[in-house]
């Protein structure tokens, strides 16, 4: 076992996969000589050279399209979005081609590409740098979407994403990079895409969450336990495809559902989960499902307003209580 930071775990995943498979390469802004804005690709340029660790100009639309072209022709590119928000400029290439070429080509071409980078609300980064795009891309067919909350999941899921033959969007959280965790020293740590992680068994209420909000929920658990509540906490880890099996099993046990997410409340991951649970487990619900999400506003710079924009521990505790009581 070794203690790893979230950013190191990501680095190790890429390093191991690049070592294992010469087709795997990284491209993006400052991924090479600079080592990545969050140091995820540190040292790779020196080890693997400029062809496999490609510093690109600031041309998101075209380098994403290039990555599609590479992926169609035997390379396995990992795009780093310096901030995932910038990839709004590459939306058409990611959606049209990362998501659809496999289908429109009748199965002839695959696009094994990973699009990874930081997102989420950080420390007063302002509206454009605080975006959560997981919901914007959610409807696009053909894509898989991952959002790990811990170093171990970050490593295991990134390795799985790199080995996956579909286009995978991999959302890291800007405030998790310096999170530490003990991880086994194996190179075989591959966590299957599509499997959620049961963090706490409980009977009161099912809490579904992902990415940074997992940690807010874990904090809330302490207080809730002390006060005699018994929530079941699930880290979705993979947002698309959802682990409907685990979600269903839990809802059938608790009959109550709370979703804690950092993306916008409107049309967020939570709304799709609610729709699915309504469709599959309606009779199991004893109360309306609740979404605890970010307010539907551009993330304000002001610290207090920013804090009020996203779900906080107190909100989670409050939400669980009003759901259970």
């Amino acid at each position, binding site marked *: 076992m070794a203690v790893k930071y979230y950013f190191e775990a990501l680095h190790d995943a890429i390093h191991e996969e690049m070592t294992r498979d010469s087709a795997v390469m990284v491209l993006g802004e400052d991924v090479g000589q600079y080592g990545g804005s969050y140091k995820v690709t540190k040292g790779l340029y020196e080890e693997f050279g400029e062809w496999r660790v490609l510093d690109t100009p600031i*041309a998101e639309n*075209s*380098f994403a399209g290039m990555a599609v072209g590479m992926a169609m022709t035997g390379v396995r590119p990992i795009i780093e979005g310096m901030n995932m928000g910038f990839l709004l400029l590459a939306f058409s290439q990611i959606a049209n081609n990362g998501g659809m070429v496999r*289908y429109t080509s009748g*199965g002839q071409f695959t696009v094994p590409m990973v699009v990874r980078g930081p997102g989420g609300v950080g420390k007063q980064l302002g509206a454009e740098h605080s975006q959560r795009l997981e919901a914007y891309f959610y409807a696009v067919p053909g894509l898989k979407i991952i959002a790990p909350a811990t170093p171990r999941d970050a490593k295991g899921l990134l390795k799985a994403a790199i080995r996956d033959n579909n286009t995978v969007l991999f959302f890291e959280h800007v405030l998790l990079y310096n999170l530490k965790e003990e991880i086994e020293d194996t190179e075989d740590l591959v966590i299957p895409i599509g499997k959620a992680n049961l963090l706490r068994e409980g009977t009161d209420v099912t809490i579904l969450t992902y990415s940074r909000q997992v940690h807010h929920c874990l904090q809330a658990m302490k207080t809730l336990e002390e006060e005699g509540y018994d929530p079941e906490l699930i880290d979705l880890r993979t947002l698309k495809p959802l682990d409907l099996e685990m979600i269903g099993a839990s809802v059938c046990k608790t009959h109550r559902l709370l979703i804690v997410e950092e993306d916008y409340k409107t049309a967020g991951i939570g709304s799709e989960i609610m729709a699915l649970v309504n469709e599959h487990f309606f009779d199991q619900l004893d109360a309306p499902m609740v979404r605890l999400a970010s307010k539907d506003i551009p993330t304000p710079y002001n610290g207090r307003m920013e804090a009020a924009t996203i779900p906080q521990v107190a909100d989670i505790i409050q939400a669980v209580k009003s759901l259970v009581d």
Partner: protein
Amino acid sequence: MVQELHAPVKTAEITREEGFVLYRDMVLGRTFEDMCAQMYYRGRMFGFVHLYNGQEAVATGLSTLLRPDDYSCSTYRDHVHALSKGVPARAVMAELFGKATGCSRGRGGSMHLFSAAHNFLGGYAFVSEGIPIATGAAYSAKYHGTDQVSVNFFGDGATNNGAFFESLNMAALWNLPIIYVVENNLWSIGMQHARASSVTDIYKKALAFDIPGYQVDGMDVLAVRRAAKQAIERARKGEGPTLLECNTYRFRGHSLADPDELRDPAEKEFWRKQDPIKQLSRYLLEYKLATAEELKAIDEEIQAVVDDAVQFADDSPEPPVDEIYRFVHAEDE
């Protein structure tokens, strides 16, 4: 024969065999597209169908010099680029009919032709969308250390889109084996090139990236071929990208849905006179590389190929609707 003795001594720049290859390929493109028009009006194919009539010299001049393992990437006006790269007329026509035997298994349609077997990377329906993709394929070739080249066809209108400039810059930075072929047919649907580009000579934009750029008579397949040869050699030798601006014209509306009311009849007439197929046949005859009979025979042979393609498409089954989810993910085989 006696006649030959009197014939002026001229040497052709192509052999008789090469001449046939070029002629056959251009006639195939033309005949195929004319058939598409018929089939469209008969309700056998749907959607937006963009025909290539008039621009054959470009696809043929480039593609007949490519190796099977070279990459070709196109736009929504992609039928003939696919054919010239070797995709069988049957597979293309069947795709347009939406059949299971189509080159995209009926899922793509006119604007989304693909053929992995021919390294035909596809038709792309968004303007300029294929440019970065072809550039990525060129990167792959270099990445894998092969000497494959990537050829990318697109229109004058695409050169006003950011992807064009972004991609040229990257291709130059990394010295990629790619040929950017601009088919400047003077129009983007109803938008005149001169109203859309502040500098109408597209080849000059290559200077902004230190890429060699050339302007070529896109109605003269031999001129295109000459330029293509150079560019492909450069790319194959690892000397980097080239931008070829081929001045050409489409003989039909933008798509079969386009009334085509804005283009001046005189302009159309002017270009029709330079029909690339007529020019080549004149050349082949003048240089005694072929006889009228031989060319007529090819015309008929090609007509048969296209008729057969229609027959094949007709006889082919529709893709089973219950396989509608198949190929959304890579896991589906």
